[in-house]
């Protein structure tokens, strides 16, 4: 796994071309993603910004290989996701990308250990090796003391840290985060963001984070991509000032 200096690594990791994801809901055709083209370099920290319904989560799901594009291509490290079989997509999600969600999405009936271990089971890692890897991952997010706890016995911040550990367990090169701080207070949110930044900087992971909080994006992301109505409306690098154009015609 390419660890190292993100600033020096400018090879293109993700290439998105004219990507569309349309679906019909009753009579209406929803254009969740409508002709987006963008390239993301390896090691970048990208924030996808926009109001609800702007298509940022849909775009993230397409990059995650959870959803199929209606047209256009998503090429991640030379793999065209649209051309992968279901089996290959599962492998891609297992090894290449890690995901964290706003609602944590830990399995409530499982302990932290079991939750974090799950991707290792799917990756068919030897049982003997699994526990060590899980402890290492939980240690990295400061949760090694709570192996046997259920998600409901933890605070939101702890749950999100556990899901970060789960996302990292198979050492993916991409971290896809969908509003990772959306359910957290600002202090806990900062804690989570610091972990994500650390993964970006020390592990060289490429981060794509969906958020509607511009301040958060400005503080952590090296690049901000603005979406509205499924279209790309802005793409700024490392801009901290608030002069970026606001998304227009927003649905709330």
């Amino acid at each position, binding site marked *: 796994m390419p660890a190292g200096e993100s600033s020096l690594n400018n090879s293109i990791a993700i290439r998105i071309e004219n990507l569309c994801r349309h679906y019909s809901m009753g009579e209406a055709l929803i254009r969740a993603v409508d002709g987006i083209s963008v390239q993301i370099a390896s090691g970048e920290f990208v924030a996808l910004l926009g109001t609800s319904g702007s298509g940022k989560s849909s775009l993230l*799901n397409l990059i*995650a290989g*959870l*959803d199929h594009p209606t047209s256009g291509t998503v090429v991640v490290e030379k793999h065209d996701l649209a051309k992968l079989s*279901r*089996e290959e997509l*599962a*492998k891609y*999600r*297992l*090894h290449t990308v*890690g*995901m964290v*969600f706003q609602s944590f*999405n*830990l*399995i409530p*009936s*499982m302990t932290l250990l*079991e939750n974090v271990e*799950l*991707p290792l*089971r*799917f*990756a068919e890692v030897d049982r003997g090796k699994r526990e060590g890897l899980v402890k290492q991952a939980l240690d990295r997010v400061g949760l090694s003391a709570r192996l046997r706890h259920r998600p409901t016995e933890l605070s939101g911040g702890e749950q999100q840290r556990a899901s970060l550990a*789960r*996302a990292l367990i*198979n050492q993916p090169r991409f971290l896809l985060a969908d509003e990772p701080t959306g359910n957290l207070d600002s202090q806990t949110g900062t804690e989570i963001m610091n972990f994500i930044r650390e993964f970006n900087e020390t592990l060289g992971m490429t981060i794509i984070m969906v958020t509607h909080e511009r301040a958060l994006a400005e503080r952590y992301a090296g690049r901000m991509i603005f979406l509205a109505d499924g279209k790309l409306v802005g793409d700024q690098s490392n801009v901290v000032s608030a002069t970026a154009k606001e998304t227009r015609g927003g649905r709330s």
Partner: protein
Amino acid sequence: MAELAVRNLRESILRNSLTTVGISVGVASLVAMLSLGIGLQQLAGRRLQKSGLFDTVVVTSRRDLRGFNREQEENGPAPAESPALTEDARQKIAQLPNVLEAYPDIRFITELRFEDKPYLTMMAGLPFSAKNNDAFDGMQGSFFSSDTAPEVILQKSFAAQLLGKTPKAGSDEPSVTEVAKPLLGKQLTMRYAERIATPATDTVTANSAASNNPAGTAYSVVSREVTLKIVGVCDLDPDSMRGQARARIFMPLEVAQNLHVMQPSDLRDTTNMASGTPAYMTVEVHVKSPTQVQAVEDAIKKMGFNTFSIVDATRSLRQFFAVLDLFLGIFGSLALAVASIGIINTLVMAILERRREIGIMKAIGASDGDVKGLFFAEAGVMGVFGGFVGVALGWTIGRVINLGTNVYLKRQHFPPEQIWFVPWWLVIGAIGFAIVVSLLSGLYPASRAARLDPVQALRYE
């Protein structure tokens, strides 16, 4: 996946144990039904087949126009041209497939003296194999000590007659124990006519009919007496198939054969036969099972003899056995269907309930195969548990029914009876069935789970 499946099952213990109970109830009803059915069939085997009624074929020569078959066979040789029922023919019949034994039926009317009073009755020879006949179940005394022992077994009513205890009409028959006590070990004298083969040149009054026979068979008939010991008195009638001609006193077949009692058929047969070998009036054939009776009968008919079996007479009995089997099959399948539907239901519900969990698993890299395998394994584990619990439950139900039946039988003054039997193959089969049905029922929910769209599933709250 199996490990994960087990932990998932442990997690929602209530729901899954209810499903497992559903499976086990299905398996239990299957086991209970079949064990009772098998028990009943074995009971039928013991009570009906052992009576010798259903696995016996009576073979007579076509020459014997008094044959059991009132309707004479349409095809086959005419009576006069048909073969005689000789020892050779008996051996041939005994070697037919599925034939256990074929022995001549020897019976004759004879005079017996008991305590200086004469009694005229029908005597029959019994093969030693008849020992297992259930007619001797309630017998007092014992079966013949050997094939050649000069011993007799009395039928209860004849025993009563010897004692002068013939029941008046309407009153109860005396019990076996009552009539047996004074008779066992006592002796009877039997008077009979022995047929002694003599050289053809001899001039004996009785052989005049044979004088036109080129090979020349002659015999004389001599009056004899033999002393016989009463060893048993039986309650039931070992000769019930015979109707009017049934014997009321029995001796070992060998003894009966060696007495060479002059039989009514002798005269005609010997006059027609080229050799001195006597022909039998009737040969009784025991077949391995009632289902093979028809085939054996056909084979014997091909040899040119007449046959008779109760299966011929009572198609409805064959139907009974067929319906019994069918009935068991139907109930078994119903139980299977109920169990399978229960399993499918639980697994499909489990998917609805666990949509989100499936979505999460897919999002973090579970393949369709992983999800399918997980649900499949869960179904399998429930099947294994359901199978074991079900067999235990079915076993218990069968036992309880058996117990209840015996209490009832006891009240009706019948001996207890085993109507319930669980063969090992049923145990293994039922568990195997539970696993297979669970896996088959798991197929659909598992593939549904695998096809679930993760984006949709994650949105689902």
